[in-house]
């Protein structure tokens, strides 16, 4: 095929272009022509089509996501907000922390290992791009039914991929989720989160400023990976294969990324970059247009300088390639030698491919011929915005009016059976089979990881400053009521931070939904964003960024609305954190918070095939008072242990506590079935030395949190009234599930 240049585009306005195949709509294509005042060249078409895809442009979600700005919490803690690669939060002592969560759902279904691995690789580069050293990862995951044959294909591959990549990068995995539901069959959710730390002064931004500064591409060579991947990923044509011989699956090279991280950090330390951007979805199209758009606007690039792994690639393909482990930096000419020397030291390929110009055009040439000449903002930041129709779907009224009918265990035998059932059900069973494949020790700063409520890492070895992160989603509640569901997930994630005594500080999110073209799904999405924005405002937590994944559906069946909420917290001294469980007998156990009849969306209802009812109402004021109580309990050294109640209610919480250090407990419950199985939000079990009783009651009163003694620790069983469950029986039930299913 002849090279399509700007000159030829001007002289052949009538040329037919495959914009539909590339995912652009009729009117979008017309807009491109209008912007350019001519038809786009094929390279320009490639750029607009990938950059205006759902995945890159957020065209369906943008109009809703605005609320995070409109309802933003005023806080000095937010150093960099939404819009950059990742938000940055001040955690004190001159340190800044950045964290972000992203999805890699569709690729992980096609090729579980590589899909998950490159998901981790991508989010780590986002964090690195901010100037931060990545310090930990987390992986909230969702799969089809645990017993399904395809889950046995997908899950082990995903776990091995998350571990294979993260372990090789030397990033401790400090938490995540593994949840099963039939709607995720064919649509597994692979979300990956990374946390990074830097000094305030080291923050880097994606902008190409200063005419004459050089554009440097460094890292792996460019191959034909994932060409068309971006538009295919987030468009209705998912499943249709792209151009022949061009893989839609990328293979990651974690070793190259590890070297890229160390090389980049050395470059940052020497202060050699003006701006920087990682190459992720939409590859060079995205990096060049975003850098130019974020700067003064002008940039020229000689595309033929890009080092190629596959010499047969066309310029369009080079622009769209999603080859992993690449970065793009803006470097002042006086620093370029030092920049290249550091790359050489680390054996990283680095090439000057262009420079920042005074104009306001992004111009790309191929062997001297102009093939792209566009205003970069129109590519990167001024894509289409859709006002998609949304309406409450019919199922809502129907399921909300359903009565939840579940068996209530009465006899000791029934209670024991219920506790064992929950302990071993795939959603609540011990996840060690998964987490044993992840390195949690590397870097030597991990304070908490699986099975703790949150992951916690030390940031400073001398002061013991630390950060904690928890991720939560409750898709069952979001299904019943997306507005309340996401608020409840937010409250839960914040509580999972606070149980350790850390102070919640900021929020990131990954919103996984079905097709935005379905008004019902769009309504779920709109309600979720509204709920999250309201919730964050009420809790005083800024949203620092996030990610939207649409089109998670098979045919007309969408996944449950699954907003994964990540909360970051700070703790001034990790040595004083409250652990999740007790390691000795003779402590008193208290339940903080009240238990109501909340079975809708509970694990107990799920086990019994019940999906209906009404989700609980969130009470974020109470949630904040409880969090304050948990933080105070830590600083005043009241608690020996604290563990949150969520899926599986008190039954699951007690199971996890007694098994942690093999120390049993005896509890007395007035209404064991309700007390054990209901999932009323906003509750925590704490263990205290009896000498701390008054201090606890005083604090609880101050926080207006109901506080009830439920039992004591000790023995080799979990005893509930007269029902005795030996720890070894409980342990077997809890730990055998994953090895049985996936071992």
């Amino acid at each position, binding site marked *: 095929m002849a090279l399509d240049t700007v000159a030829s585009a001007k002289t052949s306005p009538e040329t037919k272009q495959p914009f539909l195949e590339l995912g652009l709509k009729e009117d979008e294509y017309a807009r491109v022509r209008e912007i350019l005042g001519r038809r786009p060249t094929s390279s320009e078409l490639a750029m607009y089509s990938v950059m205006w895809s759902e995945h890159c442009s957020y065209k369906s979600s943008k109009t809703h996501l605005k609320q995070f700005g409109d309802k933003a919490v005023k806080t000095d803690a937010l150093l960099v907000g939404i819009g950059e690669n990742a938000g940055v939060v001040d955690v004190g002592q001159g340190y800044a922390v950045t964290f972000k969560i992203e999805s890699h759902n569709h690729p992980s279904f096609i*090729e579980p290992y590589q899909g998950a691995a490159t998901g981790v690789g991508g989010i780590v580069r986002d964090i690195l791009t901010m100037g931060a050293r990545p310090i930990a990862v987390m992986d909230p995951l969702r799969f089809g039914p645990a017993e399904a044959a395809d889950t046995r294909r997908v899950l082990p591959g995903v776990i091995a991929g998350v571990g294979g990549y993260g372990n090789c990068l030397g990033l401790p995995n400090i938490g995540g989720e593994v949840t099963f539901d039939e709607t995720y069959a064919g649509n597994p959710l692979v979300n990956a989160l990374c946390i990074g730390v830097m000094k305030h002064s080291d923050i880097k931004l994606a902008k190409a400023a200063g005419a004459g500064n050089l554009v440097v591409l460094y890292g792996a060579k460019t*191959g034909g*990976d994932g060409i068309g991947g971006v538009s295919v990923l987030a468009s209705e044509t998912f499943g249709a294969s792209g151009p022949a011989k*061009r*893989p839609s699956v990328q*293979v990651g090279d974690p*070793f190259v990324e590890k070297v890229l991280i160390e090389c980049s950090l050395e470059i940052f330390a020497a202060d050699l970059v003006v701006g920087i951007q990682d190459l992720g979805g939409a590859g060079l199209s995205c990096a060049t247009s975003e850098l130019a758009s974020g700067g003064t606007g002008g940039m020229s690039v000689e595309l033929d300088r890009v080092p190629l792994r596959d010499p047969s690639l066309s310029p369009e393909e080079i622009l769209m390639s999603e080859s992993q482990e690449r970065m793009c930096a803006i470097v002042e000419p006086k620093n370029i030698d030092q920049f290249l020397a550091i790359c050489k030291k680390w054996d990283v390929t680095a090439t000057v491919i262009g420079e920042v110009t005074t104009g306001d055009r992004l111009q790309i040439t191929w062997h001297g011929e102009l093939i792209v000449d566009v205003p970069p903002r129109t590519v990167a930041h001024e894509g289409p915005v859709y006002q998609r129709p949304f309406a409450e779907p019919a199922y809502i009224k129907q399921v909300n009016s359903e009565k939840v009918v579940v068996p209530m265990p009465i006899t000791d035998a029934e209670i024991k059976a219920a506790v064992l059932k929950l302990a071993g059900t795939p959603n609540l069973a011990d996840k060690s089979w998964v987490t044993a494949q992840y390195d949690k020790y590397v870097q030597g700063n991990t304070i908490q990881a699986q099975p703790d409520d949150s992951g916690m890492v030390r940031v400073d070895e001398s002061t013991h400053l630390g950060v904690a992160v928890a991720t939560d989603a409750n898709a069952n509640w979001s299904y019943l009521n997306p507005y309340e569901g996401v608020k409840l997930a937010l409250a839960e994630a914040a509580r999972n931070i606070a149980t350790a005594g850390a102070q919640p500080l900021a929020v990131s999110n990954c919103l996984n939904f079905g097709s935005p073209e379905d008004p019902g799904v769009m309504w779920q999405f709109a309600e979720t964003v509204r709920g999250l924005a309201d919730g964050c405002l009420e809790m005083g937590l800024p949203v620092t960024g996030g990610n939207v994944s649409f089109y998670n559906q098979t045919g007309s069946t969408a996944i449950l609305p699954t907003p994964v909420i990540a909360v970051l917290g700070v703790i001034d001294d990790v040595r004083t954190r409250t652990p999740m469980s007790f390691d000795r007998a003779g402590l008193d156990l208290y339940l903080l918070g009240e238990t109501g009849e909340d079975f809708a969306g509970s694990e107990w209802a799920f086990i019994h095939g019940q999906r209906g009812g009404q989700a609980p109402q969130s009470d974020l004021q109470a949630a904040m008072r409880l969090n304050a109580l948990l933080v105070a309990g830590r600083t005043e050294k009241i608690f020996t242990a604290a563990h949150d109640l969520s899926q599986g209610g008190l039954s699951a919480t007690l199971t996890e506590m007694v098994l942690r250090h093999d120390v049993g407990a005896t509890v007395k419950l007035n209404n064991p079935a309700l007390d054990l199985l209901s999932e009323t939000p906003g509750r925590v079990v704490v263990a205290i030395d009896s000498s701390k009783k008054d201090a606890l009651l005083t604090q609880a009163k101050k926080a207006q949190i109901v506080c009830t003694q439920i039992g004591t620790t000790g023995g080799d069983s979990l005893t509930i009234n007269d029902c005795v469950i030996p720890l070894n029986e409980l342990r077997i039930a809890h730990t055998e599930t994953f090895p049985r299913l996936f071992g």
Partner: protein
Amino acid sequence: MAKIVVDVMLKPEILDPQGTAVGAALPRLGFTFAKSVRQGKRFEIEIEGEATPEQLAQVEKAAETLLANPVIETFTIRVEK
């Protein structure tokens, strides 16, 4: 008893980090003969009796479903003496 060999290689357009690493290490050790290196897997399967066409068809099926991932890999099958 026959031996069937299944060779599984990454498709040529797919990045091969292992082969690349080996290809980079060779010249450092003074071996300059390689223009490129690709690394794959080799399965040696021993079967009872002769390799009948039916058996080979089975192996083909197994290679497709288990031994190789057709999304990123190709395979070849042959009988070895």
